[in-house]
């Protein structure tokens, strides 16, 4: 340790950072951390594309609706593409939420309490980084779809992509945060990953709900992936939104947000 280059007298007239400490440097580092993490990239980007290639690509020429593909109808591949893109966005979102719990267990949130950073702003920065990665996942899966011959109208590309991305991010960041605050340590990430696979299956991302046995169908309609994925895929068929889907999505979002808010308040009191 060398002697102080800063020999000027200490002054105490200091400013408080604006926006509770929100800044792009932190956001950039958060995003870099995700992009450098091989496991994150495999689960959020490689895995959905691989599943699409295995399940979706062989059905590029299978029409999803009564309208033939030659007349502009969507293919089953497009349906699977949107599902897989959502799976990637969900993975990114939950991992982001769970990471808050891991970092708390490691004492990093305590370290951050020694800075002006507002704990809520900390969560917001992480959410944005998680959403950006989710956007990459959606874009990558859609690129794979387009490359393999999926043809949709511009409105369909944009509406399915945006709604899938935003709905998955909103509901599952909240779920990840809730688990992250409730379950201390590394377990949070594992629990949520497992939960997502199960919920994705139940909600019809890997296997169409309509092909499930009746009792499974009635269970599926109440699980959190079901509502948002039905809404996101609605533009493909051109059917309107079912009220049940919207209620499902809003109810789960409200539940997870409330759970997160409760756990967050409990957590900041304890730090």
């Amino acid at each position, binding site marked *: 340790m060398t002697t102080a280059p800063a020999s000027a007298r200490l002054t105490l007239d200091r400013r408080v950072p604006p926006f509770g400490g929100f800044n792009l440097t*932190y956001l950039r580092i958060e995003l870099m951390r995700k992009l450098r993490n091989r496991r994150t990239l495999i689960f959020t980007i490689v895995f959905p594309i691989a599943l699409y290639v295995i399940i979706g690509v062989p059905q590029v020429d299978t029409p999803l609706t009564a309208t033939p593909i030659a007349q502009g109808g969507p293919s089953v591949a497009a349906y699977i593409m949107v599902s897989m893109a959502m799976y990637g966005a969900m993975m990114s979102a939950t991992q982001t939420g769970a990471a808050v719990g891991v970092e708390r267990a490691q004492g990093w949130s305590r370290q*951050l309490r020694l800075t002006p950073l507002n704990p809520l702003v900390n969560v917001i920065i992480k959410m944005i980084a998680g959403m950006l990665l989710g956007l990459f996942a959606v874009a990558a899966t859609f690129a794979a779809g387009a490359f393999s011959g999926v043809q949709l109208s511009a409105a369909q590309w944009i509406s399915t992509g945006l709604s899938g991305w935003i709905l998955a991010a909103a509901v599952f960041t909240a779920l990840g945060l809730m688990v992250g605050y409730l379950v201390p340590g590394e377990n949070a990430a594992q629990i949520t990953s497992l939960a997502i696979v199960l919920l994705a299956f139940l909600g019809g991302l890997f296997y169409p709900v309509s092909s499930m046995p009746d009792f499974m169908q009635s269970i599926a309609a109440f699980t959190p992936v079901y509502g948002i994925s039905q809404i996101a895929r609605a533009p493909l068929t051109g059917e309107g939104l079912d009220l049940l889907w919207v209620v499902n999505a809003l109810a789960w979002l409200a539940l997870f947000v409330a759970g997160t808010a409760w756990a967050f308040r409990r957590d900041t009191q304890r730090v």
Partner: protein
Amino acid sequence: MDITTSPIQSAPAVAAAGLVKSFGSVRAVDGIDLHIRQGEIVAFLGPNGAGKTSTIDMLLGLATPDAGSVQVFGESPRGAIAHGLVSAVLQTGGLLKDITVRETLDLTASLFADTRPVEEVLQRAGIAEIADRRVGVCSGGQQQRLRFAMALLSDPGLLILDEPTTGMDVEGRRSFWNAIRADAARGRTVLFATHYLEEADEYADRIVLMSRGRIVADGTTTEIKNLVSGRIVHATLPGADPVAIAALPGVDDVEAKGDRIAVHTRDSDAVARFLLTQTAARDVEITAQNLESVFIALTSDDAAARPAGAASVIATATATATATASAPEGARS
């Protein structure tokens, strides 16, 4: 240099009164008052479980006191942190293992309104060579230096260090304290908790001794040492007459172990003169009371059993500390 008259320049670095913190039925902090002037280097001493860390947590706003008040530079702890006025190196502070040392500092710096350059704190903490290393592969000592660098970023008016040199080697420890000393010369207040008595003895202007959630002594290093008065005269004297020695002026206690005697006295010269001229004593040695003996005397079970005696000791120490310490403060401003 301008003479600033803003209230913050004259506010005490720490003003805590009647702090109480309990965990379940355990009173970790049991009503302490702590007043630290700007520019002081204060060692916070005490055995494990004395309440040092709980007190530090309250100064930093990491814990809310059950009773009492605490202000840092005249603000709430949280307000002082938001202004970058106080920072800390804690034992419990975690680091992100997947980013580099430099990224950790870039990130921390981005959270403050005003900071020192990252390159500068890298240099000062002695980790410039490992700036691009991932935190996860850094040694414990290197991670501790990184925490120190993070704490320096905001150029805080008050730096709080909880066992700061744990995991550092002797050389690292020395250069760490040199850096702290250089900072204090610029007017930085430093409060450090330690269990290395020699660190407190060598580097602190003032020692606050905690035991069982209370402050049992508070004063300059010399004053604290004087709390256990006098010196000890050792000598080898076969067939010593303890009664005759105990009768000498100033002698508090005489211990004999075999041929070796230890005389606790307030007048070591008189005892030595007596031993060398009136007896066959040889190998005469005079030792001063060290901090360790004070530490043991004030934090032992015995000390707790006599609260009245301990209380008077504090009162004396605090009074003298205030009187002697106010002079340099006036000279500085």
